[in-house]
């Protein structure tokens, strides 16, 4: 996929003594995201000396660099070069992820449904009835950050964040959804859980998906849990 607007409008901020934050600013959300992801991919592949890591998200790219080998100036010059070099996103893959919604698996399902003025069943249909897009892969350990379906209202965060999420927990916040792959702290409303282990260090890469991939959620019942409870690469859908 080629970018529609190659000379993307953007701002570069110094972000500490060894970091830069690129902020894409043009009017279209989808384009800002494509530009951020394309630049992220290009920077990761770049031979530019001194790039330590790249975090590309909805409309931003955070580049950290080794200050003994690079400078804000040299990295910004590389960014300008790459933005002009027509980076491409890889073709999308569709993943199906089974989810046990509600009950102990999704203690906040009823609350979120009531915020949306829906029944829990209607919320499950809305959440699982359409495809989501993976906007980026972040922490904790390979968490997919997704959006797509029209959630009626922006979902508030938990008033008190949880200290330890149960791995596999499916969170909703704002208009986004996420899966916590690890027992990290977290502040998103939990509406379900997947029995599939998405993060697997015995595989390279340890998560099967990448930004731009699509996901549909498959509602499963409690008694189906055990048959799905395995690493992602052993799951056949």
């Amino acid at each position, binding site marked *: 996929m080629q970018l529609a607007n190659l000379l993307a409008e953007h701002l570069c901020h*110094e972000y*500490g*003594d060894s*970091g830069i934050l690129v902020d894409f600013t043009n009017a279209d959300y989808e384009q800002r995201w494509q530009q951020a992801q394309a630049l992220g991919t290009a920077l990761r592949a770049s031979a530019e000396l001194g790039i330590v890591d790249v975090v*590309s998200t909805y409309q931003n790219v955070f580049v950290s660099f080794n*200050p003994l080998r690079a400078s804000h100036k040299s990295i910004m010059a590389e960014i300008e070069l790459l933005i002009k070099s027509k980076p491409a996103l890889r073709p999308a893959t569709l993943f199906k992820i089974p989810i046990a919604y509600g009950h102990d698996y999704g203690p906040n399902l009823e609350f979120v449904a009531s915020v949306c003025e829906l029944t829990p069943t209607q919320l499950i249909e809305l959440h699982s009835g359409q495809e989501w897009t993976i906007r980026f*892969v*972040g*922490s904790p350990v390979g968490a997919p950050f997704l959006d797509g379906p029209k959630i009626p209202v922006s979902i508030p965060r938990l008033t008190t964040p949880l200290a330890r999420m149960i791995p596999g927990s499916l969170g909703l916040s*704002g208009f986004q959804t996420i899966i916590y792959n690890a027992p990290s702290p977290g502040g998103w409303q939990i509406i379900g859980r997947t029995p599939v282990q998405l993060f697997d260090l015995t595989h390279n890469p340890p998560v099967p998906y990448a930004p731009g991939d699509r996901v549909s959620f498959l509602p499963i019942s409690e008694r189906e849990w055990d048959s799905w409870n395995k690493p992602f690469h052993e799951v056949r859908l």
Partner: protein
Amino acid sequence: MGLMEQTISRGKTLSIAKIQVQRAGYVIVQDLGRTGLAAIGISANGAGDQSSARLANILVGNGDGDALIEIIASELVVKVDSDLLIAVTGAAKSFEIDSVSHATHETLVVLSGSTIFIPAPVNGQRTYLAINGQIQAPTILGSVGPDSFLDFGQRLIGGTELSIETHFNAELLGSDFPMFRFNFPAPNHPNEIRLLATVGPDVDRLKAGAAGLEEQFTVLPQSDHVGMRLSGVDLELVVAGEILSRGVPIGAVEVTPSGELIILLRGRLLTAGYPVVAVLTRSAIDQASQATPGTKVTIAVVDMDVAQRELAEKEHLLGQLSVRVAQAFSTRGWQQLLAVDHSSFRNL
């Protein structure tokens, strides 16, 4: 010399030395952490006080990113079963070998059968023990460093035995007992600290601007390796739109909607959506990781060239020290103790 399995490697004697942990508080096998793994959502982690960890390794001739022992706000007692070359840096002001007190921040020989006692620090909270050679410990994604999200890490408890592959042995001691005086300045960890930072992208959201950070804050007890929480003056924010989650650097100074300050440390999640009003300099991040609950903190926003000059000076000092260590070891005929990538600064 104690029990050793000896092998011959490139004509030099390589031994497996052992240390036995007798008593340990919160003590872990550590290194500089995992970098470059944002694409799979892995946090950096690694030694909280990176310069003290690097310094300890440099003092014993290791690469600055080699595995070492991090002792957090507690003590460690180990018995050594082989002659070892060690250095202790970070928060502890002194430590004991067989009840004889020694200064930290120097290179020392410990004889087989000795007991090393590293006390809990009076000020600061992270002490590092480096040992010449390679500590044998499992790694994940290239690092021995603990990561609670990966459910990984090696904690030392009473009874733990650690192996170290080292070229150091009694034959290197010769007739005179080696003494080193590198006189590298040991940092202080006072109860009031001033952290240098550069301006963050959202500083305009602070009603008082960067000057608002010069107020005195207090480190809260719920601080950890993920973030330092500060209490004090509630900072007023300008009403502005939502910030979409984006990558956040270690050292980011965030303001929560209630006006509380959080400084992100090495275990941070990679993305967040709070305003970032400043970013600590690298050495200020090390200082922050040493600050105990109750420490008074002010944040001084300086120009980028001031921050970069400070960084260049600190790196210059560490680089100079590694050259002096290499010279001192070479003078004694200890070339084989020097790591090939001695002081590579690879994980910066």
